[in-house]
């Protein structure tokens, strides 16, 4: 094919470390052959970082597994992949093992399953060394400790004797990187290496990854779905869709002037930390195609706003992009010649349906609005038990440890924090409507410890929840009509009224009312979340709790759901309590933000104030760790990388609970460190009022200072 020749010839001058040509992977399945990868061409040069980015099901991980020979036996792999000139495809396991680990290092998504649980980390790294190098046991041990030190494991000589389960997720991933670079490989293949990690730990691991590349001079094939990570790591990027590379080129070039509508759409759909509040995202309509029996034509055509007749009949080849500023920028689109700066003939490819802000226009000052929810000094502790036959209490998990906030009518409060900070426990306590273990909760003016059952039932109608994963929050055995009608039925709405309301709700969340008899499994992820939202809105509640509403969804789908949530709030005057681990996601909707760390709120305030002027060092670190999908900006950022991991919530910490990881604390003179060690800062240890700003912004830090983080 002429197009493919163009690809190879452009990089012929330097022999690439990895050259993939026309790679195809097919899995036989009951429904027919799944064409997971359909003719992929890639090159990774010496010391180059190539990122493959795509949504779930795009075939990006299958490419990595095919290169490493780790696909199941049933998979049919065709094409060629040369590592420094040696063909990898079709090699037996024994021959591949010689290359894996020595020439090619691997980092997987889940480091717990990548290590054998019964051997120590040190032993496993030593083993990796001794398999490929002729060195003594003692030398290998010494080298493995050096490697652990290199990736930033504290006390590497002691930790080398620890077992994988004794490492935290971030440390395991670092140990995995240590193992990957143990034999000084020429190429590292990393498959979603940070997806399972918290954002501050992700920043640490990416930092280690960069260091490892510097030390070994290896090339990196990084597979990720996160456009922010790509912006910070990649030299070149390949965008995959439906098993093919649809755009490829230098990372700055592709981000600045994408030539394929899918890339354009993806970049427009990513929520950004530096966005303006209320600015709608641009979602991509529809869902990715099924990989069984793909119809001819461009697989993106059904979702592409710029599709023309030829798009549905002929699949466009990957060719040089006419409007490119660089020669190696390739796109697979019939109309790419017309696309300049994301526009065709001066009109944007993805038109914004409405330009209005999605923030409510209600100008009533916060203090004058009704209070819907007050949480005061809330405490939630879980006993930690050991022993099977006679369990005894060996400790306490302090999940929520004195949380206070309030939510007023029409307001969206975001509770943000990393896993284990107690944000979900907090909203669960609110939803339970029972007497809390400590502190008090009052919903719509009624204290939950004084509710009788009739009152509690009435409040349940005013307080609704949308869970993280629509797959588990919708009963798979109920048709959609019954699911959405359930709260109505529970609150005594009769059949005919229920039926009318369900149709109305389906339309409201952008689904077809005629799909009322379908089961949840017949909908895609984004549609299922819309069903969950419709159910939450059925009783016209005053307050909706959103527990990580989009974190289970792909970028192009999540944008639509985020827009819907913001739009519904504006139209229906809802109040939200939104739990999220991703700061960028709440930027669109939230007008107040509370940042949680280890069971406490460390900073709370109006979203604009917190985003533009974060004061608590943890908030600053959290914001700094969120990667921006903007390569020049992302590379230029001064990143705050926190040390270590979040302490276990089973320990009682004297003084400030963030002290062990605080960069500000370490930079202070001893006299100023004293309060941090001795006394825990209250939530209003720092107030914006004291500096003459708006009063509604407080932080639990003795030494809160402004800092530029975005």
């Amino acid at each position, binding site marked *: 094919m002429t197009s493919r020749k163009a690809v190879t010839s452009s990089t012929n001058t330097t022999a690439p470390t990895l050259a993939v040509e026309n790679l195809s992977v097919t899995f036989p399945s009951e429904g027919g052959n799944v064409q997971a990868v359909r003719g992929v061409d890639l090159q990774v040069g010496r010391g180059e970082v190539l990122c493959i980015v795509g949504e779930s099901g795009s075939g990006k991980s299958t490419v990595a597994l095919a290169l490493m020979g780790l696909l199941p036996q049933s998979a049919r792999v065709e094409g060629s992949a040369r590592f420094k000139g040696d063909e990898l495809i079709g090699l037996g396991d024994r021959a591949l093992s010689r290359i894996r680990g020595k020439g090619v290092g691997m980092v997987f998504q889940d480091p717990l399953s990548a290590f054998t649980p019964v051997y120590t980390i040190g032993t496993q790294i030593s083993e990796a060394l001794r398999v490929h190098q002729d060195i003594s046991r003692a030398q290998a041990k010494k080298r493995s400790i050096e490697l652990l030190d290199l990736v930033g494991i504290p006390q590497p000589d002691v930790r080398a004797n620890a077992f994988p389960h004794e490492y935290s997720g971030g440390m395991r991933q670092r140990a995995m990187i240590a193992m990957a670079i143990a034999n000084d490989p020429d190429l590292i293949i990393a498959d979603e290496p940070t997806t399972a990690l918290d954002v501050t730990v992700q920043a640490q691991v990416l930092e280690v990854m960069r260091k490892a590349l510097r030390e070994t001079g290896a090339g990196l094939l990084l597979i990720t779905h996160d456009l922010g990570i790509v912006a910070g790591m990649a030299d070149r990027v390949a965008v995959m869709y439906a098993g093919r590379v649809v755009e490829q080129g230098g990372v700055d070039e592709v981000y600045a002037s994408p030539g394929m509508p899918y890339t354009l759409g993806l970049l427009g759909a990513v929520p950004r930390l530096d966005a303006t509040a209320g600015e709608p995202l641009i979602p991509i309509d529809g869902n990715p195609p099924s*990989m069984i029996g793909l119809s001819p034509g461009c697989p993106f055509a*059904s979702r592409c706003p710029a599709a023309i007749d030829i798009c549905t009949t002929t699949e466009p080849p990957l060719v040089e992009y006419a409007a490119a500023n660089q020669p190696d920028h390739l796109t697979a689109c019939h109309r790419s010649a017309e696309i300049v700066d994301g526009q065709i003939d001066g009109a944007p490819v993805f038109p914004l349906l409405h330009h209005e802000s999605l923030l409510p226009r209600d100008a009533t000052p916060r203090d004058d609005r009704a209070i819907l929810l007050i949480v005061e000094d809330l405490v939630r502790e879980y006993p930690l038990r050991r022993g099977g036959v006679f369990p005894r209490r060996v400790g306490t998990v302090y999940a929520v440890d004195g949380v206070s906030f309030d939510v007023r009518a029409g307001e969206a409060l975001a509770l943000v924090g990393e896993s284990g900070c107690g944000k979900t426990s907090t909203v669960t306590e609110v939803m339970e409507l029972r007497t809390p273990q400590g502190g008090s909760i009052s919903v719509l003016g009624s204290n939950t410890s004084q509710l009788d059952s009739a009152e509690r039932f009435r409040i349940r109608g005013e307080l609704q929840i949308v869970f993280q994963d629509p797959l*588990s929050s919708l009963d798979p055995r109920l048709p959609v009509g019954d699911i959405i009608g359930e709260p109505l039925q529970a609150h005594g709405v009769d059949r005919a009224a229920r039926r009318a309301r369900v149709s109305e709700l389906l339309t409201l969340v952008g689904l077809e009312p005629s799909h009322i008899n379908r089961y949840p499994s017949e909908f895609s992820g984004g549609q299922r979340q819309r069903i969950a939202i419709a159910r939450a809105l059925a009783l016209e509640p005053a307050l909706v709790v959103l527990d990580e509403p989009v974190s289970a969804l792909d970028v192009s789908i999540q944008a639509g759901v985020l827009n819907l949530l913001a739009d519904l709030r504006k139209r229906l005057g809802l109040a939200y309590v939104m739990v999220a681990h991703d700061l960028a996601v709440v930027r669109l909707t939230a007008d107040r933000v509370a940042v949680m760390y280890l069971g406490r709120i460390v900073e709370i305030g109006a979203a604009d104030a917190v985003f533009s002027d974060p004061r608590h060092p943890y908030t600053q670190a959290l914001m700094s760790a969120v990667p921006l999908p903007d390569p020049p900006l992302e590379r230029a950022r001064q990143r705050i990388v926190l040390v270590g991991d979040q302490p276990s919530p089973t320990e009682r910490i004297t003084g400030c609970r963030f002290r062990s990881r605080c960069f500000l604390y370490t930079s202070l003179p001893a006299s100023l460190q004293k309060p941090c060690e001795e006394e825990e800062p209250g939530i209003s240890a720092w107030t914006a009022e004291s500096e003459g700003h708006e009063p509604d912004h407080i932080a639990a830090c003795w030494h809160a200072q402004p800092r530029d983080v975005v």
Partner: protein
Amino acid sequence: MAIEPLSEIQHNVEGEAVAPTTTDDGEVLSRGRLIWRRFKRRRSAMVALGFIGLMFLFAFLGPLVIQWNYEQIDPTSFLEPPSSDHWFGTTQIGQDVFAQTLRGLQKSLIIGLLVGLISTSIAAVVGATAGYFGGAVERVNLFLVSLLLVLPDFLIIAIISPRLKGQSWLWFVLLLSIFSWTLAAMVVHSLTLSLRGREYVSAARYMGVPARTVISRHILPNMASFLIIDATLAVSGAILLESGLSYFGFGIQPPDVSLGTLIAQGTASAFTYPWLFAFSGGILVAIVLTVNIIGDALRDAIDPSSKSRAAL
């Protein structure tokens, strides 16, 4: 507002394409009617349902039509093979086998179906309440289950059943049910424990749905495949247990007959006078098979992700 349009092909969890299985004709169907609609699509199930209905008609209307009574003795024919006079032949003492089979079928059908229904219902209620509520309810229910599990059921039935002589044979049904639900209840309990943590159960609780509705709408339907398999097995199990007990002289007592007693009497001469054994045995096999087919189809109709449904 941007809307994701629904394409004709929908995607399930694994991303495979599944064709829409329900008609989108705008008519709102409750779950019960949807299940019935899906059940009806399975022809074998409809045939099986018809067969069971026919059996009932046969068993209860049949004796009214034929000239012989199951106790009646025809002194002119002993051990005669099937003829136009005696359709299924006669026994050693000249009783009509056809009349006896009908009478036995009456008993066995009702005993089997009732025991299956009652024991599975008890198992579902006891197991699910134990799992859902926890605490004291759980301890009491599980104690009851363990107690019944350690008691030897055959012996107890053997001891109690002579006292039921003269009473309605429905007591016997109850007795059989009481001893056949325990194991299923244990399984239901552990299934409930795993279902209780599901978010749709929390969601239902948070919207104010009462506990009994949560159990009947979310917990039990999601273990429907287990319950249905259990019920169908219990039907055949009860018929066989009843036969066993009757064989040893407990349960149904002569001159009354059940399929079990008929088979017991017929086995000895199964090869020499096959009509004594073949008709009652054949009908028992047919009933058990039919119940299983219906159970299978019901399970598939309730479970929207069931694979076998896609083949329709």
